[in-house]
């Protein structure tokens, strides 16, 4: 098998319009990929998605959902037992086919960074550039140091760096090779929370500036939304939804996704006269369900507003102050609980009767039995 070549790299039409998504070539494609560590127990099954050049994709899911396995399949660390993986149009993984990692031209940033402790910062970054003449290698390392804000630290050893600096070195080491696709495995999970926000912005900016195609694994939906052009949500080794962050948040395709990417309440309802009747009001029947069908409506706290009134069956059960908002827990007459997000200055006493106003721009319906697994 020929290695993923450097020749195409330079000819790729760089930055050819964010406007025209379809014009950008596919860099990576997974077709019904199945991978199993033990026979008969698939870690991921039938996962398909594709990434276009310059795109940032997030693999999102709870721990054990197969997102890291997917990343390792792409890197070539794990063989597949079904399906195919194409890198730059070339088949690299299939049952019986495995282009070794070292010939794939992928970059990888590990969760714990895995900086070589016996090498200095500049030697770490230059590790993958062995084939270049030393002058060229030097220039590239320096350019990378400057770009990642590490100038002046090149003589240090990894243990002499802070967590954020270590991460920059790991990024620099991966990016300096101009990888076809950069893989990041939970890159922010080892940082302090206040550091994470800044690093996210920096990394996002760096990936855009270098026009790097990247796949990022995370279990944090906020991180996925902040970083990604598109998000692939995985659960139990299956791809649940693959779409833009906005679509995933507003119109999740399964109850799992709805619940995982943000707070969601599921209100049971019945189809009648082409509408969904629930205890908090009527919703359009967007799923095209038949009359009499039992469904649930997904509502997010920002779809529900509350108004204090004299008399109502609904009462405020609790208020959680979150700085930028107040999250209210409301008990309905039936005993069901829903949540409402109000501005941070709207403070109502616990126990007050309230009236609900639904301001949903999207209505998301599921069959009732689907949500029962979630215990909703």
């Amino acid at each position: 098998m020929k290695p993923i070549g450097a020749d195409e790299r330079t000819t790729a039409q760089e930055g050819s319009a964010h406007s025209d998504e379809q014009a950008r070539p596919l860099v990576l494609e997974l077709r019904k990929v199945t991978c199993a560590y033990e026979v008969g127990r698939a870690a991921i099954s039938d996962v398909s998605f594709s990434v276009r050049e310059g795109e940032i994709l997030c693999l999102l899911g709870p721990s054990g959902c197969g997102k890291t396995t997917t990343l390792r399949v792409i890197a070539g660390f794990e063989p597949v037992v079904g399906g195919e993986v194409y890198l730059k149009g070339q088949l690299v993984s299939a049952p019986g086919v495995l282009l070794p990692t070292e010939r794939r031209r992928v970059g990888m940033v590990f969760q714990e960074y895995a900086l070589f402790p016996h090498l200095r910062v500049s030697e770490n970054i230059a590790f993958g550039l062995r084939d270049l003449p030393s002058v060229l290698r030097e220039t590239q390392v320096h350019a990378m140091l400057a770009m990642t804000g590490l100038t002046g630290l090149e003589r240090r050893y990894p243990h002499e760096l802070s967590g954020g600096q270590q991460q920059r070195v790991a990024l620099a080491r991966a990016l300096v090779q101009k990888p076809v696709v950069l893989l990041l495995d939970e890159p922010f999970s080892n940082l302090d929370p206040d550091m994470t926000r800044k690093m996210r912005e920096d990394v996002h900016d760096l990936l855009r500036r270098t026009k790097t195609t990247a796949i990022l694994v995370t279990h944090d939906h906020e991180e996925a939304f902040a970083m990604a052009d598109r998000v692939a949500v995985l659960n139990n080794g299956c791809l649940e939804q693959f779409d833009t962050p906005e679509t995933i948040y507003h119109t999740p395709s399964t109850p799992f996704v709805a619940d995982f990417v943000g707070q969601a309440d599921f209100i049971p309802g019945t189809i009648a006269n082409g509408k969904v009747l629930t205890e908090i009001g009527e919703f359009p029947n967007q799923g095209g369900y038949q009359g009499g069908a039992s469904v649930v409506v997904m509502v997010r706290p920002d779809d529900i507003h509350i108004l204090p009134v004299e008399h109502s069956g609904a009462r405020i059960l609790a208020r959680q102050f979150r700085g930028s908002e107040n999250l209210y827990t409301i008990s309905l007459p039936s005993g069901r609980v829903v949540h409402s997000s109000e501005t941070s200055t709207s403070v109502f006493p616990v126990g007050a009767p309230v009236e609900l106003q639904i301001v949903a721009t999207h209505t998301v319906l599921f069959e009732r039995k689907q949500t029962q697994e979630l215990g909703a």
Partner: protein
Amino acid sequence: MALGVAGVICAPLMYIVYLALSADSSVWSRLWNTRIPELLFNTVSLAVSVSAGTFVLGVSLAWLVVRYNFLGRQVWEWALVLPLAMPTYVLAYVYTYLLGAGGPVEQAWQIWAGPEGRVFSPHSYAGATLVMTLDTFPFVYLLTRAALLNFNLSYEEVARVCGASRLRRMLTVTLPLLRPAIVAGLSLVILYVVSDFGAVSLLRFQTFTYAVYQQITGRYDQTAAGVLSLLLVLFALIFLVIERWFRERSRFYQTTGRYRVPARKPCGPLGTGLITLYMVVVFGIAFGLPALLLIHWSVSAVAEGAVDVRFLGFMRNSVFLSGLAATFALLIGTPLAYLASRWPSRLNVLCLQAAYAGYVLPGPVGALALLVLFSHLAPFWYGTAVVLIVAYIVHFLPAGLQTMEPALQQVTPNLEEAARSLGLGPVRTFRETTLPLVQGGFVAAWVLMFLQCMKELPATLLLRPVGFDTLAVRVWLEASEEYYKLAAPSALLIVIMTLPALLLLVSKDWRAA
């Protein structure tokens, strides 16, 4: 009190330094012109060749056992540690028989090479190298294996992502990262080689330890012995420092992160066969064959009535001395380790560090110092078992402390405070919190020290009361006279008794190291 104990333990070392530095310059120049160049050359070249041998054996065996999967792997993983149970003088004595003139190896060789065929003599540089290598390669094996097991696989994966081939990954990533562990293992080996007395004395190979012994017993020249001892101490000190330094570093090289069991490469029948052959040969010549030979000799010695009242007397002497020494060492070590871990003031830590002085005092050197010290300061104890017990304590307390220290460190003040806050009085706190946490470590320390004392040879030879022989001394005496059969029961008993200590050591300390 701790200060006093530390002082007593340090006294032999101090005295050696004093003895050597106060020696007349003519003694120095005489030694420098006669003995020292030869001894230095012999000791260094033995250390170099044994290091080379243990490096090859230790690293390759560790690599096979950790990175490959083959039939019987788990068994070999443990079996390869067993050579440590063979004291060097036992292995040396077995090999003087095997390789000696008219011995089985020569006979086998003559079948092939004709009646004039000769194998190398065990009483040579090659013989000493062989015995010491076979006896000490498990140090390198154990430390390398532990480092490989804790190895963060992400390093190798990152190297793959960077396009490095298998060979380049091994040379530029894996081996450099194992370097601290390997160097620590090699330093341990060298420390062992330069302070060994048993093997070199039986193989009559002139090194510093052997020369010190000869100066004391043959020439009664204590000053010359002191000078040679100081050089030996310096030698040992250098490698002790190197070992400490690299062990510290190796801890540091194993970054945290998700631990994954390294994927073992499965072996086909051919691979399994080759690996098994290699393991069988190494294990066979280092432990299996010598052990079988000892059993064989012991059986016939017992049949000839060698295990008589005298033999039981030697056994009783060994157990008596070792038991007393281990118990006293534990009593002395506890306050030192406790003070240093609970109130780590500079003085307390210094006292603890001082107790480690025994590490750089090879058996004959410590014996020499105590011999002279006792004859000057407490002549009424001279020639009694007291001197010997003090020698044991000085020599083996460091090993005990190394096991006691981590046990005591487990007991953080918070735990005791938690017990107190839950309403337990000081006595119950000690009984229900402190004691259960430390007792395992303390029992282990006692067993370790006891068995080290059982094996001890040079100090016992020099300091034992007249007619008060131990098992180790008997092995050495009989073996020196080439009474192979007579030496076997004692030797076998020592090997068998050392096994539990070895398992203790392997299961506890080394994996964590």
